[in-house]
């Protein structure tokens, strides 16, 4: 089942096309990847999906229902959660409060405080942050901040999780831990759609990968197909 679909999705800023005529889909239960050079429009695409930016044209559909034009909080309640490329934690609130809040507001069914508390603590355990749950979020290490963003997103009980450059700035050990976390998330029944620059990670973890360049989708397929695609290689020549 296609859990997420985009039809001729486009976003223009003035005359500039950030995303142009992109058709994409994510299958339920997979880990899908989104790669491309800097400025290709990847985060913009995520912003369009999550409702942070309005589409200029085109449609987005989640579980068969159109979600174009919905506000971020509505899309969250439908079951899509995300993390951000530039960390957007509630810095002066504690680690626990960050997750607790998401648990209280992000779920589609009313939840009472004790249950929300229980779920939050479980999630902190899941990502490995139980030890720092009373610390202010802004004091965490980068890796922990990323863990917290993931926990916060998961607290909204999503069916689809959008990860925006989760591994940026992490050392190799942390990257491995992050990869392992992503797999565990998928194994818990949550579809993952991730933007990444760390090629090793994305190639080993994803079932399917899409490539964007200058706002246009130039390739799509399995990791093997992508690494041998001529257009993709061209686009990345000159990239590290």
């Amino acid at each position, binding site marked *: 089942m296609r859990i997420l679909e985009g039809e001729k999705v486009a976003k223009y800023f003035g005359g500039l096309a950030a995303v142009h005529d992109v058709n994409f889909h994510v299958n339920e239960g997979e880990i899908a990847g989104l790669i491309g050079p800097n400025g290709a429009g990847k985060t913009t695409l995520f912003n369009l999906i*999550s409702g*942070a930016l309005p589409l200029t044209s085109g449609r987005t559909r989640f579980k068969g229902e159109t979600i174009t034009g919905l*506000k*971020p*909080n509505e899309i*969250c*309640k439908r079951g899509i*959660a*995300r993390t*951000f490329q530039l960390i*957007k*934690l*509630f*810095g*002066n*609130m504690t680690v626990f*409060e960050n997750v*607790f*809040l*998401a648990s*209280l*507001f*992000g*779920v589609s069914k009313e939840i009472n*405080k004790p249950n929300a508390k229980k779920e939050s603590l479980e999630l902190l355990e899941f990502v490995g942050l139980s030890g720092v749950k009373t610390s202010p979020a802004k004091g965490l290490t980068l890796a922990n901040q990323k863990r917290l963003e993931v926990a*916060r*997103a998961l*607290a*909204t009980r999503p069916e689809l999780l959008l990860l925006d450059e989760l591994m940026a700035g992490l050392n190799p050990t942390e990257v491995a831990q992050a990869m392992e976390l992503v797999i565990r998330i998928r194994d818990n029944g949550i579809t993952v759609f991730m933007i990444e620059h760390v090629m090793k990670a994305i190639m080993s973890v994803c079932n399917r990968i899409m490539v964007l360049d200058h706002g246009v989708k130039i390739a799509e397929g399995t990791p093997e197909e992508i690494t041998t695609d001529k257009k993709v290689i061209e686009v990345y020549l000159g990239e590290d």
Partner: protein
Amino acid sequence: MDRVKVITNRFFLQGLLFVVLLLLATMPLYVRPYLIILLTTIIMYVVITVSWAIFSGPTRYISLASAAFFGVGVYVSAMLGQALPLPVVIAVGGLVSLILALFIGLLTLRLKGMYFIIFTFGVSELIRHFLLWWETNFTGTVGRWVVAVDHTIVYYVMVVIFMMALLTGYLIKRSKYGLALRSIGEYEEAAAHIGINVTILKAMTFAVSAFFMGAAGAIMATRWTYIDPSIAFNPLFSFMPVLMAIFGGIGQLYGPILGAAIFALLEEILITEFPYYYMLLFGIILVAVILFLPNGLVGLIQKWRRGGLEG
């Protein structure tokens, strides 16, 4: 060690609050009328500041519309005072302010930061100048007379409004909405992405805070007996709550109370002899607080208490 601090902290504050409320309730029995009137003014400032802090504190949207909400209450009182009983007038004053705030809140859903601040100030001033122009050109006389009410009644009404505002602020702060409001102040975009309807929450909290300002205005009008647009919508009513809340410290609920009480007291003491000196003093204190005491008096008290326990 933390738990001991919290318990003594909470009991201390609750006990203090109870004593203060008891004192306030029984004051008119043994205190001179002049002091009652003074206290009414001080509590008025406290109400406006606490109300302001209910919205602007956690969300960090600095609103300069307090004068608009307060002034609307004043004018409602002036217009309805003769026709309706006092409790109704006050409630209506609060309600009209609330509706105005909802209207402004929903209009400004896209405005952030500086734009919001300037917009709220613009709305306040627009209302003031418009009423001034209207009264000059259409009603013939500028200003209105308000039916006077016994100063003891005014005092009690103000105390009740204060208690309601305080209780509301406390309940909001402790609820999940209080946490949500803080998250809006931290990172509004992220708050929206975890399911918080930021627009509705902001608008409703803004409206609640305006209600108490309007109610306070409605009762104050009966104390002043003569009002005009420049009295009712005086920009100072927009600026002072901000100063008082910053001075007191926004982190805790008692911060704005402390800041407003001290400033209002200072104003009453200095205004007859040294009217410009007290405003000058406010300015200096504000700059000093921003430079050296960013968390206000609350921050100072917290530091002192922490130091005292460890020392």
